[in-house]
């Protein structure tokens, strides 16, 4: 079934791009198409200037694309084993170096390295899912609704990490329902509706756009 219609999207190195839109707009499908889990019926995916349309997901991962799927989907293994699974050899950094970086970013994961991922809280599982994606030392990281079902304080922590990663040079495509925070971290925002691009622009400009405001940010001006 055709879900996406003529969407054109671009991410520059170290940039955070946010995709917003209501449920069923095709945000997840778009990410899955970029990472090769879905095959586009038309159009192209280019990564670092190379046409990678139709590549298998594992090939994309080895090229430096990390996909942190919706709903976290951590493996029911220990925390560290999850990181082992995410590790992709031959991308420059050793397993131990990457693992220590992940534990530096998320100290709680280091403390629970031997525990089963199933026993972690939702926020910790999300951290693990991001950590697992980072084990492939990605240049582009796809984050599908990392705030889903998490407490506000955890969401803030995770968005701080997103900013930190972008500062370190990782490009990020973020799919989010949490519009407020997304606009704060994003450089550029694309708004989807019914699988088509509704509007796009730099985050600051988009936040001021009356159309976006009406649809997504109705409460922004309302006194709280």
């Amino acid at each position, binding site marked *: 079934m055709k879900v996406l219609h003529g969407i054109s999207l671009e991410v520059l190195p170290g940039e955070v791009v946010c995709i917003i839109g209501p449920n069923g707009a095709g945000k997840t499908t778009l990410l899955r198409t970029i990472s090769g889990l879905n095959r586009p019926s038309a159009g192209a995916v280019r990564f670092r200037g190379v046409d990678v349309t139709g590549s298998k997901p*594992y090939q994309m991962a080895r090229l430096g694309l990390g996909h942190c799927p919706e709903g976290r*989907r951590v*493996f029911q*293994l*220990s925390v560290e084993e999850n990181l082992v*699974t*995410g590790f992709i050899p031959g991308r420059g950094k050793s397993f131990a170096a990457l693992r220590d970086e992940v534990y530096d970013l998320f100290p709680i994961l280091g403390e629970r390295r031997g525990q089963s991922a199933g026993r972690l809280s939702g926020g910790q599982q999300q951290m693990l899912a991001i950590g697992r994606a980072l084990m492939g030392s990605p240049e582009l990281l796809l984050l599908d609704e990392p705030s889903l079902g998490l407490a506000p304080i955890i969401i803030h922590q995770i968005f701080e990490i997103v900013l930190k990663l972008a500062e370190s040079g990782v490009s990020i495509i973020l799919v989010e329902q949490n519009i407020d925070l997304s606009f704060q971290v994003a450089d550029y925002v694309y708004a989807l509706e019914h699988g088509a691009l509704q509007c796009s622009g730099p985050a600051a400009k988009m936040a001021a756009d009356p159309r976006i405001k009406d649809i997504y940010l109705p409460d922004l001006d309302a006194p709280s």
Partner: protein
Amino acid sequence: MTSEAHPRLNPVRGAAALLAVPALVLVIGHFLPTYPLRVLDMILLYAVLGLGLNIVVGYAGLLDLGFVAFYAIGAYSWALLASGQFDIHLPFALVLFIGAGLAGLAGILLGIPVLRLRGDYLAIVTLGFGEIIRVLMNNLDGLTNGPQGIARIDEATLFGWTLATPLDFLYLLVGLLAVAFLFVWRIQESALGTALAAVREDQDAARGCGIDTTRVKLVAFGTSAMIGGACGVIFAAMQRFVSPESFTFWESLVIVLVIVVGGLGNPFGALLGATLLILVPELLRAWADYRLLLYGMALVLVILARPRGLIARDYGPSWLMRRLGGG
């Protein structure tokens, strides 16, 4: 990689255990009369079959209900290549490799089309494959002698050592089990092991982690089939008679039960499961009429009490390794 979940085996104690247990089995074997010795042989054979099937079912999480097909391919390899059927008499060691190789090849050829399927669908197709092989053996009269089977198979000779008595086979099977156990253990602890676990847990997420799931599943299917094939060769050499009757769906089911009862994805589970599944029906022979009833009840009780198997994955190897003094 060392972590709490997978402490390293202390090499000295590990090696001691690795030598002591088989040695103990062999010593016991020397004191057993023929009938219990045959039962012990069968336990070891099913333990190896369980280890093989475990790669696919336990580690990769793919339910294979046609494992007996690979066992049959191995058995017929020895029956056809070392008997009067075509007056071919190849040496046992060679056929062991041929049988395992053919079975592995069949596993990969079956895997290429069916590994797109998941869950129940995969189970049904593999079940069908198991039956197809049996029906083929039953009907290819010119090749396999049909339902009459192939009798008067050669006595197996391994580098001048003639495998004649159940005790000889006990030595062979202990060796095979040790090799298979170490092999499966290595897989579990290797990158392939983590890849298999990822495939079992979530195929899409695994692909996103840079794992070529198709290749990983094919490797699992192929290696598992090879172990099944090797077991088949030994089975044929032990019985010196094969017929399609030995390779019914029931056999596939028993091997699945071995690992489900013992504990999926855990080499110790296969050992315990094989012991129970082969030993219990033999012990129940005294109550001939109620034998299958009691056997069934025992299995249901085990699954009710320990739904994840007697040695669940989490407390299997790691628990034993801590006992053995791992870090």
